């Protein structure tokens, strides 16, 4: 499986690359628009501040190629900020438009719990999805974020809860994304990545 890993300088690119390679994927990391336009399997990682991701995509003129590739049917996986960027906007970067591939707005988790939501949490309201094939119910995944997508919308495949429910796994046709870090989530995370590679094949 050939995977195009979008490298706009996010901190977790090397670990995502390592995790995909362990599963036998051929990974090309790139920030070149033409390569992203032509990709059949795209992974958008991300960690940190949402504005950094959006600004970097625009600085490298990657926004339209990415939207076009997804529109063409390329298999897409967003990780953490790569999930949040799919929506129309985020409270974290109110002046920057998101990719707008999904309707809605990413908002901050409530103040009455410790933020960032950092550590291992479980999934619930799980619907059948390729990404979660054979993943045991009760499996833990590693999260590190303070903002999240609302837990509504037909794209939701599983939610998690920290102060409020939010989308942890989404799947809408060829668009898939996870709020947790599969590359840091041990065996359960590796299974999710393997499922993505299989679905993309």
């Amino acid at each position, binding site marked *: 499986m050939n995977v195009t890993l979008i490298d706009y300088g996010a*901190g*977790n690119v*090397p*670990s995502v690359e*390592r*995790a995909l390679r362990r599963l036998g994927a051929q990974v090309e990391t790139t920030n070149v628009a033409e390569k992203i336009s032509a990709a059949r399997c795209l992974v958008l990682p991300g*960690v*940190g*501040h949402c504005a*950094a991701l959006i600004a970097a995509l625009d600085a490298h003129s990657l926004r339209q190629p990415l939207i076009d590739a997804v529109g063409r049917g390329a298999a897409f996986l967003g990780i953490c900020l790569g999930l949040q960027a799919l929506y129309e906007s985020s409270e974290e970067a109110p002046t920057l438009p998101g990719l707008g591939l999904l309707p809605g707005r990413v908002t901050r988790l409530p*103040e009455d719990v*410790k*933020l*960032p*939501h*950092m*550590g*291992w*949490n*479980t999934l*619930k309201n799980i619907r059948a999805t390729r990404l979660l094939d054979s993943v*045991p119910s*009760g*499996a*833990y995944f*590693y999260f*590190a*974020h*303070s903002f999240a997508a609302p837990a509504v919308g037909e794209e939701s495949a599983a939610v998690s*809860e*920290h102060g409020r429910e939010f989308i942890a796994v989404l799947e809408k046709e060829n668009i898939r994304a996870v709020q947790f*870090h599969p*590359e*840091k*989530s*041990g*065996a*359960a*995370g*590796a299974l999710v990545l393997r499922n993505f590679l299989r679905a993309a094949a």
Partner: protein
Amino acid sequence: MSLARRIIPCLDTDGARVVKGVHFEGLRDAGDPTELAARYDAEGADELVVLDIAAARDNRPTFLETIRGVAEQLAIPLTAGGGIRSLEAARAVVRAGADKITVNTAAVERPELVSELCAEFGAQAVVLAIDAKREGGGWQVRIRGGRQATSLNAREWAQRGVELGAGEILLTSVDRDGTQSGFDTELTAAISNAVSVPVIASGGAKVPAHFLEVFTRGAADAALAASIFHDQVQSIRALKEFLRRSGVEVRLPC
């Protein structure tokens, strides 16, 4: 089910090898960092911390090589630190494979470093390490591996660190460190209840009951230990099974 409490082994290194010793005295070899990292990942550690306790000496490239080797072994988050004094040094550590950076003395000396790191890597990647020692009715911040006193109050410094953007506090009791007499739960609770970010308790762990105590009375979000894991005095798996039986939510790997 909700957010699990984390168990975090810590590898103190001299750059290349894992070492142990109290307050940098009588250091002795405790193993190969990549071998220990692989073992802890397999045993169900939730994260790993790697510190360069010989930092500010001349072995930075060796430490970066160690981080690379350790990161290669892990499918869990990696925090690295020890002697990080600048954005450039932090970048090198992140490029080598660390997910989070921890800063201690340098942040006390120049608090803006915390903000600079957060602006570049995000709050979730910046761990403010605080070494605290009982002083009167409170706790005083110590620097340089606990050896040097400061005028800072640990509770106030933790709150200031969070204002500056730190996403997590790694709190070590200087009084308990190396004693194996249990975590300072009073200190941990005081800091954990004073800040809005997760707190990792460190210093004094030996038996499973110490961890139970720091997660309940100490309100810790995570607990860190070193030699009891290296010497196989305590297995991570058995510790987590004990905690789960005692009603603490932990991740037991499948």
